[in-house]
């Protein structure tokens, strides 16, 4: 189909992941940016805008305060260097900032980059804090109640498990349904040699037998920890046509934020604020749900995939579990979801994991996991630094196309 909105494009992609890369997040970020610039066929001297798009601002090691910038590390001659941080929606916010800068003529080529040394942080010296990486501290908007055992819980499962039990209660979703999501992502990962869990197939039975982390979540319901970096280079459509790789157009962007009704609207606990995000992004892109060839959902935990497949309308509300169990999101299914393995089986880097995979698919570089004739991809983000028990309030939606 003819894309309705093709003013700006992603022209360069750098991505890598591993465990124990023994570098700071800042260095990993610079390396991702270097790869993205080279991938675009550009030189460092061409890059005149940089966006530091992080999951979390000041509380992430190397993520705020008196720190160095990846643009300086790399020697980029940028006119601006902005930080955006809002949980797992940082890449899509970064794209908003980058495209607006291009539109205003503030820059010709903008790099948006993110990295985290999450695996190294949790297995190295930063892992010793008695209550984990809490965010408490004067001025940090703490209620204090997060210290009652929430921040000690392994992974963010202590914040997200509630939404799973609530969905199970309201719709009869089962742990096996969540297991089917994990299996689906793993099947995709086994087609992706760069996925962290490549070559390690799992079954729903394996999921059921994996250790309980925060009931109802087993180990295999939780996303990975990774040392990873992703960067993209964006420019205008005219400039994109002259470059090495086929342009991947930014066709639509949208956001929802149900913090406006948090804590008293009880429907927030089984759905995400997809509706306004979807409406805005789909309208800009001029597409319908049926036009989407692959969906790259934010999959911090398995239930979030169930919520999103329902909230976007691929199945009825409450039917996401059975939908997963039918293999509808797996290779050969109705809608390919998280085709690189997602964060559950690929690697963890906020919404950048899905963003990078969408670019790979739309360029036709997916190898064994390539979705045939992929023209339109959906990427989602899930974030917001809400205090407990806030479900991540922000939902971000990006429609990319070729």
């Amino acid at each position, binding site marked *: 189909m003819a894309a309705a909105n093709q003013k700006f494009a992603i022209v360069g992609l750098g991505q890598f992941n591993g465990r124990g890369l023994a570098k700071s997040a800042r260095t990993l970020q610079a390396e991702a940016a270097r790869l993205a610039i080279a991938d675009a066929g550009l030189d460092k001297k061409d890059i005149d805008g940089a966006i530091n798009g992080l999951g979390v601002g000041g509380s992430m090691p190397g993520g705020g305060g008196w720190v160095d910038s990846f643009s300086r590390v790399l020697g980029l001659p940028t006119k601006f260097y902005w930080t955006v941080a809002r949980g797992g929606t940082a890449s899509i916010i970064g794209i908003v900032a980058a495209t607006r800068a291009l539109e205003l003529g503030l820059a010709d080529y903008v790099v948006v980059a993110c990295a985290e040394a999450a695996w190294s942080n*949790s297995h190295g010296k930063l*892992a010793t*804090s*008695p*209550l*984990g990486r809490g965010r*408490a*501290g*004067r001025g*940090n*908007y*703490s*209620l*204090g*109640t997060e*210290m*009652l*055992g*929430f921040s*000690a*819980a*392994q992974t963010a*499962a*202590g914040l997200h*498990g*509630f*939404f*799973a*039990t*609530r969905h199970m*209660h309201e719709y009869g979703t089962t742990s096996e349904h969540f297991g089917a999501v994990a299996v689906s992502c793993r099947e995709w990962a086994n087609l992706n040699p760069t996925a962290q869990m490549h070559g390690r197939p799992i079954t729903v039975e394996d999921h059921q037998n994996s*250790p*309980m*982390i*925060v*009931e*109802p*979540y087993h180990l295999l319901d939780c996303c990975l920890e990774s040392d990873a970096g992703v960067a993209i280079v964006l420019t205008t459509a005219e400039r994109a046509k002259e470059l090495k790789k086929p342009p991947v157009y930014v066709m639509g962007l949208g956001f929802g934020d149900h913090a406006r009704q948090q*804590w*008293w609207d*009880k429907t927030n*606990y089984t759905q995400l604020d997809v509706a306004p995000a979807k409406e805005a992004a789909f309208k800009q892109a001029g597409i319908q749900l049926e036009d989407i060839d692959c969906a790259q959902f934010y999959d911090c935990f398995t239930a979030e995939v169930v919520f999103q497949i329902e909230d976007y309308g691929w199945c009825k509300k409450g039917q996401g579990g059975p939908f997963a169990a039918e293999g509808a999101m797996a290779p050969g299914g109705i809608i390919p979801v998280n085709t690189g393995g997602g964060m559950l089986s690929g690697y963890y880097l906020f919404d950048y994991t899905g963003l990078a995979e969408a670019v790979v698919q739309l360029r036709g570089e997916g190898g064994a996991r390539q979705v045939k004739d992929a023209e339109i991809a959906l990427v989602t983000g899930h974030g917001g630094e809400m*205090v*407990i*028990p806030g479900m991540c309030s922000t939902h971000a939606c990006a429609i990319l196309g070729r």
Partner: protein
Amino acid sequence: MAMNWRQTVVPDMFDNDIVPFWNGLKQHKFMLSRCRHCGAHYWPMALCPKHEDNTFDDMEWTPTSGRGKIFAWEVVHKVKTPAIEHELPYALVLVELDEGPIFATRLAGRSPPGLTIGLPVEIAYEDVPETGLTLPLFKLST
């Protein structure tokens, strides 16, 4: 070193807005933010959205029942540090308070068996002499 997590909750970490809540706990009062106009309760503090021209002066912290029902639950089986492993498994709950808001807390002691949504629960004040604070844990109502 064995670490008592209870002593890690210290006033320094609180947002200024939430200080009245923690002061109430010291007197074994469970306070919520209440709208002076319609009486609706909020946690944490928020301007009551039902009145267009509300200001923060229209909200007041008031003692409430400290009772509610389990709205959602989870049971922590694994923690990041050995220091509180001896307390596993413990239950974290979202309580739908009788006054309306959702309050996130922990059930005192080890997780009871058979947790389900809808079970009645109530505040279980836990004084921490070392910090002078009282923690707002909850327990199953009997």
